[in-house]
């Protein structure tokens, strides 16, 4: 198994991000969390906040407004009510 996490961020309008990354940090309703590759299955509601996608040395930050995170053996999917990338 690769050491990368498959991550996709989708909003109702479109898919904002899809690809393999090192780590994703997000704000769950019961606390912030980070997901690495091979995380245990996990599902949570998200607060309004930021999702940080780290890959190599770089990081991309998305601001989301509520949603869900779903971690499966296939990777992490975040369904955001609305999402924009912070530039």
């Amino acid at each position, binding site marked *: 198994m690769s050491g990368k996490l498959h991550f996709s961020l989708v909003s*109702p309008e479109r898919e904002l991000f899809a690809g393999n990354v090192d780590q994703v940090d997000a704000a769950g309703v019961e606390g912030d969390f980070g997901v690495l590759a091979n995380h245990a299955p996990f599902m949570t509601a998200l607060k309004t906040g930021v999702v940080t996608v780290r890959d190599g040395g770089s990081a991309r930050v998305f601001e989301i407004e509520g949603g869900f995170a779903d971690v499966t053996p296939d990777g992490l999917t975040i369904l955001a009510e609305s999402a924009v990338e912070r530039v």
Partner: protein
Amino acid sequence: MASLKEMRNRIASVKATQKITKAMQMVAAAKLRRSQDAAMGARPYASRMAAAIANLAAGVSGDSAPKMLAGTGSDQRQLVVVATSDRGLAGGFNSNIVRAARDHIVALTNEGKTVSIITVGKKALAPLRRQFGDKIVASYEAGAKPSLDAALAIASDIAELFESGQVDVVSLFYSRFKSVVQQIPTNKRLIPASVEAGTEPIDLKGAAYEYEPAEDELLDVLLPRNLNVQVFSAMLENQAGFYASQMAAMDNATRNAGDMIKAYTIQYNRTRQAQITKELIEIISGAEAL
């Protein structure tokens, strides 16, 4: 036989119509691209949402399952949501949806069920009001561009009818955008939430899901949101299908106008020729008589 002037006018009028249909076709083609992208862009969200719900639904069972997922245990009171476009001139697009919905409503009524209707789009309201005027509980316009807020208004109306116990089953009629040449009138059950065939719960490879908050709380938030997304994606699919259908219809109309112009022009030229010949004969025979 029509006079030459009448025929000239008719050709000019068909040419003017052709210009309009040609312009409409090009506008529809341009808008189709954008709305098709929007419809395709929304699909991952809707399908992932369905997968998440399928996962959750596998976890909760029996009495603990929320009603939106499991149903009220009755199917006596049915709510039918019919979504079309606001505008016409798109071939059979709207009438196909309305026909499918009407058949469904009539079948339900014959089974003795109580039916209420919510229409989305002006082209659903007009024909259904004629036949089922007393059954329509709310009607919305589809709007120039589907927005989440518009879908939210409709979805919360549906949720309220359900939560207040006025309906048991909710189905949504819209046109699924299969391709530019194929839009399929579809009946999608919204409540109880249908786990679409093919969306298997994901294989967890022996591990157990962890939920934050607990399953039922998560479902309570997820299901209304799913309703919203389903309505939104139906509106997007409708929009794309509408423009595809309009483009095809206007393409046909433009071609038909071209055929008509050709036929009229031939007829016009023949008549003109016959008239000239007739005048010549008159002149010649007049000259001979002198």
